């Protein structure tokens, strides 16, 4: 009874609070942080001519166009284009518009330079795919309405830069004509379009720049054939390689007709082996050839003579030529010399004079220089100064000026691949991390201010000071473990092959490391990181060791490429050891066993489904051998629509590391009819999820037992038409089928069809339920469905007497081979938005109610209480159900703006959401990443186990003081009264 009353009270308490957590505006930044990034820079255009703000406009590999402050590296504005809207070229036109060419040259957009507003957009519809080129009148006569020439999809288009109007269009529809270059003659309004026809013929068109008419057409053939790209060296000379890559071809096309010359490369470079490449740089009467791991600069004189200027090491980045005063060109070169970087600016016309030579100390962890963009400015003594924007191997962006790094941006964090967390070290005695308050006066002042704040007496200026104090509180950014488990290290792996450790308190970078094993090497040409796992969490046995993480990578994009393993210390970032290239890695399974040094056992599955055990030690092997018969795994072959289950058969026969390699045994397979069903999504439970209770008490004292199995796999398949994008299928021919499959036996526990529905499917699996999001073509809205699975075989364990006597099967072991009777309950609801990612909050003990975290298409993260997705919801819930918190049924899920976890912020380009339980049961940590990163702390059913941040300590103090005062006053009164009594 007491329990029931308590429950009612709890419910009253809970129902009084709105579902989900919400935030006051002045709490922003207290427990969350948000960082904006742009990604690896591809193109950069400086805009420094005018007085006023100096800026650089960049486009990146994350399809971001951004305008950066050249002084501090801050973002003025930023636009994130769609995922398949890759930026091909950018330029600044008229001094006020940023012109971008994107989507394979089919879209030209102009953006207002000061604020990033899109001014116009023009779409080019061509007939074939081709190179995309952008040419905006670089001779910037601002007063003239100059035209932009864009080439894309086989079309040459002249567009007015003021309003985006297409002035004329010339379609080069001939399929074999491959346009290589477009040149606009500076004086006359003539446009040259140059390209290959087939492999051995070179065509040049002269086009009237006013109306797009072909004025002249030349063809020349070359027996050797062309290969690769061409490079425009000056206004009338083109350089290319022949098909055998042994000769350099120069084509000059002005002055009436085409003339082709060839010259053996060996004459210029000497003997060479391996591939030759002309670097795509505009150097002005000069070009760079990469051969023999050397970059050779070759100049072309007016009569077509080739001269070798210099040979440098290929680990250098070269900028495009920058026109300095009176027709001179400057070229920037950045070379790596040990730990330093050498920045040289040379004159194009006179290669031996260095305009500038600077040495810069560079952090070793940034790797090689990948790209450099230079810009000049006039010093006070009228000489030329140069600044360089440098893109490093780890995708970071640096501005170098006067031998120093003016600012740097860690833009590697825009492309996070995977995240894991690590605990901070325990605070040791005698090591005081916190600073002592300056003096008593400051301390008092701070507290008086806070008191004023809580009593709402503070002026706006005071509020600013209070806010600053709260944000700066050293408590949350300490480098030690805290009691509540809020302070952790987020270890993120980025596409650049760099690991970052971020502090959850304020998001600062604790350490960062470019992993040696994920860098390009002889054995591994294109390494990429894949996933990151917790390798070692020392607690009982190895208390003094630092925790470590396992980074898994792959040498190439294809699945059967050799894998790379790297073990990294989570406190210092140093690479403990690395293995590889080894066998391919398809799947990594962390096992729930650890060895004596707390290293977790991991199984790596290769492309042939062989199992490799790590760590490779005798001890790990003996632990594994004991559990060998209990290890099962599965593979999903989405292209063949097959899911297979495996167990271990025997140790590998033909393998060097024999003992640690095991061969698979096929157990089961689920073959979906490939013609009618395609696998679109598979989801399992999180391995680290904790389930608090197996029983669920329903209304009217009913008891249901959750069917909890870690071996369940949710599979969604769709008809072939429905597995594409929205808009391509009609309801009649699309359907979605969802399955719940036991991965030990291959048994299908549940199958459900949604007619007229289609992919994309985003799903999350937790405890005994799955929630999935898909598109309903009939209603033309998104829907979310929930499936909850209950175990019927335990359903009759309700009798108290049976429980007391012990006649129940609750303690009997569960086996995946037994066939429990399960009951699935399901319900569907409409949901407004498209979804990018979906996950569920995890807490330490699993007691706290759950919230779904939904990354919406608008790059926000919405927290939706799981109670909204409860199959027991009905139109008119009974009194008992209401008490229990069942919400009346509505046809769509509510979107409450206050329950956006990201409040008024956006996580641009959202890709993933990660939740990590804190030590405090009520709280969970949420990290979402995309181009931006965002971290916050959530309490799905409010912080019931600790005082909230806004708990009014002042009021508590005032009350105590008032009570003490009251005691004294009443004491005096009673004394006086007693005295009067006595005198009476």
């Amino acid at each position, binding site marked *: 009874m007491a329990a029931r009353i308590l429950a009612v009270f709890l419910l009253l308490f809970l129902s009084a609070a709105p579902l989900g957590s919400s935030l006051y505006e002045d709490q922003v930044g207290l427990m969350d942080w948000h960082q904006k990034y742009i990604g690896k820079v591809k193109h950069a255009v400086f805009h420094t001519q005018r007085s006023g703000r100096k800026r650089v406009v960049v486009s990146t590999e994350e399809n971001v166009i951004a305008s950066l402050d050249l002084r501090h590296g801050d973002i003025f504005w930023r636009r994130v284009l769609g995922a398949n809207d890759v930026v091909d070229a950018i330029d600044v036109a008229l001094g006020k518009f940023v012109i971008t060419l994107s989507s394979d040259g089919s*879209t030209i957009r102009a953006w207002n330079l000061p604020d990033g507003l899109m001014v116009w957009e023009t779409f080019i519809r061509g007939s074939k795919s081709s190179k995309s080129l952008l040419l905006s009148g670089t001779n910037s006569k601002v007063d003239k309405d100059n035209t932009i020439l864009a080439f894309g999809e086989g079309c040459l288009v002249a567009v007015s830069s003021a309003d985006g109007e297409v002035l004329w269009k010339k379609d080069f529809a001939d399929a074999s004509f491959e346009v290589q270059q477009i040149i606009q003659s500076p004086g006359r309004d003539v446009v040259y379009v140059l390209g290959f026809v087939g492999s051995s013929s070179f065509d040049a068109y002269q086009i009237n720049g006013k109306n797009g008419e072909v004025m002249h057409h030349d063809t020349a053939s070359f027996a050797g054939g062309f290969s690769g790209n061409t490079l425009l060296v000056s206004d009338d000379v083109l350089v290319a390689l022949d098909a055998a890559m042994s000769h350099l071809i120069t084509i000059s096309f002005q002055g009436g007709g085409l003339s082709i010359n060839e010259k053996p490369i060996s004459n210029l470079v000497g003997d060479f082996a391996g591939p030759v490449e002309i670097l795509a740089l505009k150097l002005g009467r000069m070009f760079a050839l990469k051969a023999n791991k050397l970059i050779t600069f070759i100049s072309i004189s007016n009569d077509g003579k080739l001269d070798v200027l210099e040979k440098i090491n290929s680990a250098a980045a070269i900028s495009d030529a920058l026109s300095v005063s009176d027709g001179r060109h400057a070229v920037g070169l950045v070379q790596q010399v040990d730990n330093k970087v050498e920045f040289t600016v040379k004159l194009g016309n006179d290669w031996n004079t260095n305009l500038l030579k600077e040495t810069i100390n560079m952090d070793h962890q940034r790797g090689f220089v990948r790209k450099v963009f230079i810009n000049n400015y006039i010093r006070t003594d009228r000489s030329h100064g140069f600044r360089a924007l440098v893109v490093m191997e780890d995708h970071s962006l640096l501005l170098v000026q006067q031998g120093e790094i003016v600012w740097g941006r860690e833009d590697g964090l825009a492309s996070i691949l995977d995240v894991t967390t690590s605990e901070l070290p325990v605070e040791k005695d005698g090591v005081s991390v916190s600073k002592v308050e300056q003096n008593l006066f400051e301390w008092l002042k701070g507290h008086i201010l806070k008191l004023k704040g809580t009593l709402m007496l503070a002026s706006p200026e005071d509020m600013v000071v209070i806010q600053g104090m709260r944000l700066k509180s050293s408590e949350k950014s300490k480098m030690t473990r805290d009691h509540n488990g809020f302070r952790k290290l987020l270890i993120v792996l980025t596409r650049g092959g760099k690991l970052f450790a971020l502090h959850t308190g304020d998001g600062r970078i604790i350490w960062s490391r470019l992993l040696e094993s994920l860098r390009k090497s002889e054995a591994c040409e294109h390494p990429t990181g894949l996933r990151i796992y917790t390798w070692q969490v020392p607690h009982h046995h190895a208390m003094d060791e630092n925790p470590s993480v396992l980074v898994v990578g792959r040498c190439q994009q294809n699945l059967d490429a050799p894998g790379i393993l790297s073990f990294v210390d989570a406190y210092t970032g140093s690479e403990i050891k690395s293995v590889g290239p080894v066998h391919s890695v398809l799947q990594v399974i962390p096992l729930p066993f650890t060895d004596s040094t707390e290293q977790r056992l991991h199984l790596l599955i290769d492309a042939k489904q062989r199992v490799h055990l790590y760590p490779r030690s005798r001890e790990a092997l003996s632990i594994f051998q004991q559990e060998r018969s209990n290890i099962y795994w599965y593979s999903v072959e989405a292209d063949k629509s097959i899911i297979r289950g495996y167990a271990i058969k025997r140790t590998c026969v033909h393998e060097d590391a024999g003992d640690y390699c095991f061969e698979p045994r096929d157990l089961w397979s689920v073959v979906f009819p490939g013609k009618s069903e395609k696998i679109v999504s598979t989801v399992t439970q999180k391995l680290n999820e904790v389930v608090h209770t197996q029983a669920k008490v329903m209304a009217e004292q009913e008891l249901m037992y959750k069917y909890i199995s870690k071996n369940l796999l949710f599979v969604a398949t769709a008809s072939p038409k429905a597995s594409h994008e929205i808009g391509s299928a009609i309801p009649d021919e699309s359907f979605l089928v969802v399955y719940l499959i036991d991965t030990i036996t291959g048994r299908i526990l549940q199958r*459900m069809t949604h007619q007229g529905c289609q992919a994309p499917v985003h799903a999350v699996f937790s405890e005994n339920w799955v929630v999935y999001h898909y598109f309903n073509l009939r209603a033309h809205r998104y829907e979310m469905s929930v499936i909850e699975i209950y175990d019927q075989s335990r359903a009759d364990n309700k009798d108290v007497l049976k429980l007391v006597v012990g006649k129940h099967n609750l303690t009997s072991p569960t086996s995946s081979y037994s066939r429990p009777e399960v009951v699935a309950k399901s319900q569907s609801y409409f949901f407004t938005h498209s979804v990018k990612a979906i996950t569920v909050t995890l807490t330490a003990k699993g007691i706290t109610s759950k919230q779904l975290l939904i990354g919406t298409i608008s790059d926000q993260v919405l927290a939706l209480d799981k109670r909204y997705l409860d199959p027991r919801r009905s139109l008119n819930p009974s009194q008992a159900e209401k008490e229990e918190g069942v919400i009346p049924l509505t046809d769509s899920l509510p979107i409450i703006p206050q329950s956006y976890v990201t409040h008024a912020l956006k996580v641009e380009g959202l890709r993933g959401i990660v939740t990590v339980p804190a030590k405090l049961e009520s709280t969970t940590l949420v990290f979402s990443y995309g181009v931006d990163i965002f971290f916050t702390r959530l309490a799905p059913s409010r912080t019931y186990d600790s005082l909230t941040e806004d708990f009014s300590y002042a009021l508590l103090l005032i009350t105590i003081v008032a009570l003490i005062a009251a005691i004294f006053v009443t004491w005096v009164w009673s004394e006086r009264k007693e005295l009067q009594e006595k005198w009476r």
Partner: protein
Amino acid sequence: MKRTEQSLRYTRAQGCGEIAQRRHAAALHHPLPAVHLGDVRLTSHRPHRSPAYRSTISSIESILAMMELERWGPSKFLPTSRLLIVLAFVSCLSCVFVAGRSADGYTINGRVKIPSAGAKGFGLLGKISDVKVILNGGQKVTFLRPDGYFSFYNVPAGTHLIEVAAIGYFFSPVRVDVSARNPGKVQAALTENRRGLIELVLEPLREEQYYEIREPFSIMSVVKSPMGLMMGFMLIVVFLMPKLVENMDPEEMRRAQEEMRSQGVPSLSSLLPSAARN
């Protein structure tokens, strides 16, 4: 309209996957309040039918449209003029937010209107530049021009979904049908409330407030807090109890006092365990 919604809810109440499908079917046959959106859309998915079939269908459709319009249209016109008006209206419907077709796709033009305090109908420029318009859940993303217009180019015929992402506003996704049969004919309806759109002008359904509003300081909030309740109780004990005592009969009081004196006033020290032992 109400009845269908009711039945929809009843089917939902049973909460099963198979039943959910029936609900969708119900939703499809749900009559749309817009001009003839429902009829046209049902046939617009079949681009490869014989031309004869197409023409018959389109003629049937136009009749249907006329009938539909007649119900609402002004009845004082002569039949012929009415027909003309209807035709003009129908053709205008398609021209309002449609552009021509290019090679194998159509262009969807539309406008996002964000009401604000500004008289021009648009908020700050910074705000409008942050608005994204998204086709089919991210297939294409575009931005607004200064006047609020946007375009999607090269969209194939079919039924598409347009979403508007703007911080601070809640927009309903829009269902857009691009007809292959009547080149470039586009029809749109909000999916949240199934309202048809004559023009593709998207307006937010509501503003979104992401923060809780902090209530101003008030005495009541202090009184209601646990501390306040404690204080209140104390005050009652301190000030009201003596009053109660005063109202007692003086003789009874004296008796009680004497009784107390005989027992000894329970002091704090006597309550302590050490005192109790003595």
